[in-house]
């Protein structure tokens, strides 16, 4: 009896899901191209990972390549330089994460408090304009600003008698990470705050009114209404940016760097270029790529898991 019932429910479930498919056939059909697109451009390329286990040479077919097992990975993990660039990459991305993440939120909160709409709009536009300036130009501006030859920062510090000799900002390795982080902050703060401003705009004004009636001042309202209101956005953005930790690109480091700060400026992507592709070591480059992807996925999944447990917010 029970068995029969179970079989019937299964049967019904099957029929149900089939009916659902028939019902939503147009929607499914419409999403099909994107699934195909995703498959071709994001899953098929994974086939290229086989290169990491070969001594890949261009112009030969897949079957003519020499298979070398984990040699490339062994080489990678026994290279001191790799740990150096890994350190630089992780350090700079963490700094970028902390600064590039908290500052836009604070900026959005402050901007939101401004009552004068025209002023607020102008501020917003001005603050996100640098996002559209290429790193080449930003690097030029930064080096000029920090120059010892009439650079405004040095001139200012000299005029205020804080220093008596111009400081060679760009020649100090330990400062390089800060210079990169701060120029990144200058460039991206406005842009990154847009999404938070949008989230703030979505908060129900009645909540503010209620808070005001309850006697909450400005900071109380910010703390108890605005921040909780954009909490989901904050966490989703955080989880996503943790996933990108390993992939910070190399434009800023490459353009701002110079021989004196080399040990602090080289990042993974540049290492891939110099020691992988440029030396024709495609396999080696692919091995680093795999390592990168695995670390990114691990970071993403674990941060997602932690946040799910702690705050019930997650992307997956």
């Amino acid at each position, binding site marked *: 009896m029970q068995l029969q019932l179970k079989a019937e429910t299964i049967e019904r479930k099957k029929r149900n899901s089939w009916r659902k498919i028939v019902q939503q056939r147009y929607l499914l059909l419409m999403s099909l191209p994107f699934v195909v697109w995703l498959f071709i*451009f*994001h899953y*098929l*390329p*994974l*086939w*290229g*990972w086989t*290169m990491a286990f070969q*001594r*890949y*040479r*261009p*112009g*030969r*077919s*897949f*079957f003519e390549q020499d298979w070398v097992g984990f040699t490339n990975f062994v080489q990678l993990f026994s290279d001191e*330089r790799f740990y150096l660039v890994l350190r630089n990459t992780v350090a700079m991305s963490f700094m970028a994460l902390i600064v590039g993440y908290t500052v836009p939120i604070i900026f959005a909160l402050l901007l939101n408090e401004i009552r004068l709409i025209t002023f607020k709009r102008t501020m917003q536009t001005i603050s996100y304009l640098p996002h559209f300036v290429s790193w080449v130009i930003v*690097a*030029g501006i930064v*080096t*000029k600003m920090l*120059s*010892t*030859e009439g650079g405004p920062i040095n001139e200012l510090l000299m005029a205020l008698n804080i220093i008596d000799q111009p400081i*060679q900002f*760009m*020649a100090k390795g330990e400062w390089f990470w800060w210079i990169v982080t701060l120029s990144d902050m200058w460039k991206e703060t406005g842009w990154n705050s847009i999404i938070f401003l949008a989230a703030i705009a979505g908060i129900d004004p009645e909540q503010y009114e209620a808070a005001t009636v309850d006697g909450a001042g400005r900071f109380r309202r910010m703390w108890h209404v605005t921040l909780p209101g954009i909490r989901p956005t904050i966490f989703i953005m955080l989880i996503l940016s943790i996933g*990108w930790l390993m*992939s*910070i*690109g*190399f*434009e800023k480091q490459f353009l701002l760097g*110079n*021989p*004196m700060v*080399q*040990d602090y400026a080289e990042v993974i*992507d540049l290492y*891939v*270029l*110099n*020691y992988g*592709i*440029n*030396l*024709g*070591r*495609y396999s080696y*480059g*692919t091995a680093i*790529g795999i390592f*990168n992807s695995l670390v*990114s996925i691990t970071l993403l999944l674990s941060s997602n898991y932690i946040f799910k447990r702690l705050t019930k917010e997650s992307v997956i």
Partner: protein
Amino acid sequence: MRGYARLLAVILACVLIIAGCSSNNNGNNAGNAQPSGNAANAPGDTDGKGTGGETGERDLSPITFTMFSADLNPNYENMQSPVGQEITKRTGVTLNIEYPVGDIKQKISLMAASGDYPDLIFAKGDQNILVDAGAFIDLTDLIEEHGPNLKKLYGPYLKRLRYSKDDPSIYFVGSFGVDAQQWQPNNGFQLQHAAVKEAGYPSIKTLQDYEKVIKDYIEKNPTIDGQPAIGLSLIADDWRYLISVTNPAVFATGGPDDGEWYVDPQTHKAALHHTRPEEKEYFRWLNHMNDIGLLDKESFIQKYDQYQAKISSGRVVGLIDAKWQYEQAELALRQEGKLDRMYGMYPVTMNENVKYADFQSAGYSAGWGIGISSTAKDPVRAIQFLDWLASEEAQILNNWGIEGVHYTIHDGKRVISDEEMNKRTTDPEYGKKTGIGVYTYPFPQYGDGVLDSTGQTYTINSKEQIAKNYTDVEKEVLSKYGAQMWMDLYPAADEFPVKPWGAAWQINIPQETDAAVQMQRISDIIKKRIPEAILAKPDQFDAVWDSFMSDIQREGLDQLTEEFNGLLQERLELWND
């Protein structure tokens, strides 16, 4: 995020390549298995029997060749200029040239990986990547059959075009002018004319002479045009440190330009030039210059544009650089009429006994050139086209222009009118408008000073023309030294033997070998450690230098040197058998 996208792109490209390769298999394999076979021979045979290539009777039907050139030519005009159209008219060939955007090596690596080649490829220093991928066809037989002009052009140097001892195929026809004469120094120690004038035109032969001129001038003139004067500025932006920081160490110690190497002229043994004890003393001198405040503090930080801006402001008294690197900035000084602030070039060395070898001849440098790809449409037409470019007719067209338009013939001599000459030297768009000079380098060409069948030079350059272009200040300075030209200050070419190995910087260390990785690592160390040594306190210089030496030793210097010597030996045997 973008970094990730790029990585994906590379992986994707690689996958596509693998897919592409498997489908292309047959064609590629044939090319690989027999480098000198198939593609090169098959069309050659049919042509030999059919149209009779030896009489010069050529197929003029329209054909378009795609080409990749690693050297950006801003004057390229899609063959729409008078000269470009004339070339199409006379050969039927239209060239569609693609130039690199961004990193050349990356572009070429991807090209090799994808197996998607244009018909003609000029890959400059990275052609070994393409050769390894089997991208070029062997031109030996094609040149033999269809290349009378190429044979005449390269003459005894034809064997220098061979790729290697193991693979003596000719994959490309050399780009540099054959038998070119050098009339201008490429490298040197530069001093503003004003400083030399104020010092009373002293003899400038050693580092100490050079230093004294700068020092005295700065002491008397702490500011130039209201801004603080800079004694000596170097440029170390990215790869430029090679030109302005490390190469001059070889030159000041009497070595010719062999890139990162110094080849002993007697034993023909190469060593990484930075490891020579003489050069340590050169860097010690730079350290001293920094110590006494004459070296620009920003030398190792500044970007190239800052460097150029500084030079064109006229407040840098001395440079140590290659002419082509500061030429642009110097031109700005000239246009502003600050003729005193332009630079003279002096062959400064460690001491009086060392001869500055800027004019030492490397013989013909065959390392770079245009090759025909394994996927080219019609290799015979391609080689005929390259051959035609090497002919007297084409050389005159490309260098002088069209008769009656860009030059006229008086008493059997080609003459360029003053008006036309003026346009040539002052109009930056001249090449683009006329097409003159667009199809010389990197195509096969005769060098400066070589005479054609009528006894005139193929190129329009001449000693007189260079001297004519000097400013009055330059002429005055030169006259004080009893010289006509800057080259007169330098030890002449005939004081040196011709280097039997050519230029060592053209010897490529094969990709993907340990040596290539070692070279990269060692270069990274050099780039960082030499500035460190120069900027160290003088009493710490030796310590920094020693740790620099032990660092590169640890990265496998000995193995690298051995590897390179093997390559050098091969080149010596290949070129001189």
